[in-house]
């Protein structure tokens, strides 16, 4: 399994330069974004890398070769999911390192430190995007997912503000009140744990759907 994850990194190693540069850019730019900066940066970083690695799978028709090897289909699928989280970790590490360097160089820009809230927010966003994208990729390959890719990525940014607007409209509803009350009584760590558990369940379902699709695919 680890060799497939390393393979992904080797194949897209050039793309990493752009992805790290993007993280750097996001720290400098969008000064009014506040804590959402990290989420915006990490989502683009991870998504860019996942897309590129999926594109190379298609370009090289690698599924033919991978499926001639003594590899379980579940290993191939799981390796892609693990890659996503490895990119997430690398992107987070890059954000922290850049932030530290920029901070110590004394630039007159607002630096938003990585908080538990923004970290969880970023993780949820990356998980949602990948969790929706990967099953479709494993069903039809990269080329046919291009439109979905576009919709997902932009839908994500516009969708969040749309969602917030909707939530504002329903501010007084009983359900939202109950949820808010439940959350208010809990510490940040507990809330984060609940969210992470939900993310894990969502990803597990996504993985099983991906595997089912991949097992039924012909090459």
């Amino acid at each position, binding site marked *: 399994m*680890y*060799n497939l994850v390393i393979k992904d990194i080797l194949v897209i190693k050039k793309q990493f330069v752009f992805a790290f540069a993007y993280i750097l850019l996001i720290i400098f730019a969008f000064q009014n974004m506040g804590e959402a900066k990290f989420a915006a940066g990490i989502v683009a970083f991870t998504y860019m890398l996942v897309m590129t690695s999926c594109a*190379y799978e298609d370009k*090289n028709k690698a599924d033919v070769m991978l499926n*001639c*090897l*003594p590899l379980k289909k579940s290993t191939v699928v799981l390796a892609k999911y693990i890659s996503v989280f490895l990119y997430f970790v690398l992107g987070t590490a890059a954000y922290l390192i850049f932030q530290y360097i920029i901070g110590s160089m004394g630039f007159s820009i607002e630096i938003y430190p990585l908080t538990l809230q923004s970290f969880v927010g970023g993780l949820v966003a990356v998980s949602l995007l990948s969790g929706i994208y990967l099953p479709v990729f494993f069903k039809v390959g990269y080329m046919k997912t291009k439109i979905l890719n576009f919709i997902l990525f932009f839908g994500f940014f516009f969708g969040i503000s749309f969602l917030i607007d909707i939530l504002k409209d329903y501010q007084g509803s009983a359900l939202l009140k109950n949820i808010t009350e439940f959350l208010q009584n809990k510490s940040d760590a507990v809330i984060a744990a609940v969210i992470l558990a939900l993310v894990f369940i969502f990803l597990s379902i996504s993985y099983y759907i991906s595997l089912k699709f991949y097992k039924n695919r012909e*090459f």
Partner: protein
Amino acid sequence: MTPVLEIKGLRKEFKGFGLKNINISLNSGYIMGFIGPNGAGKSTTIKLIMNLLKKDEGEIRIFGMDNIKDEQEVKNRIGFVLDENYFYEELTVEEMKWVLAPVYKAWDEKTFKKYLKDFQLPPKKKIKELSKGMKMKFSLAIALSHNADLFIMDEPTSGLDPLVRSELLDILSEVIQDENKAVFFSTHITSDLDKIADYITMINQGEIILSMPKDDILNNYGLVKGGKELLDRDIRKSFVAIKENQFGFEGLAKDRKQAKKMFGDKVVIEKPTLEDVMLYYVRGNQNV
């Protein structure tokens, strides 16, 4: 003795094409040439063996095991070379090897290094920078470096120059010196098989039309040439196919000795090549 590769009643339907009741049996120690024109079903058969396509019906057993139930175990002992490059072109030869080596239980680094040297494959070069011949040699080096017992090759010689083709065929002859190994080799270049194949299986329009020892084909079949007046309905039936023109006929007979007995000195009978046999089977009767 359990065949290394045994296919029984294999069927696969596509829109406008289908494999119909494919039966193949290959024992260790032999090379089987799998020939047929483009689009005959060679690659489809190989993809079904490798479980890249889902079969509709039939059984595929490799080393006596089911190719799907025991997929990992079976594939550990298969060395494959495909018709084009399916490796990650962005990786170097060495990087690709790092990815592939841990996948095989019996990876043999020493043998791999030996083949890299023999084939003059530069480990630091990216796969996309290799020539077609070099890519095929890399594929072959991987196939030969994990103690495989069955080699499955899908048109490995297509698009290669005669020198590289000949090199590949020499290596396969060397591999088969070990009687525990077998090679299943698809091609539409029949001259590849003249040199190395022990068995010939011919496929056309999704059906196996012939599967027998190569020497039996070359020793028994005959290319008969003579005047058209010699042909009547019964005699025509005794040929695989006949090609006629205004001067006479040329036909492929399954039994050279019987043809000699039938026509005596009125015809010329020659030993056919595998290409002749394939062409007559595929084209059928022709009037030019």
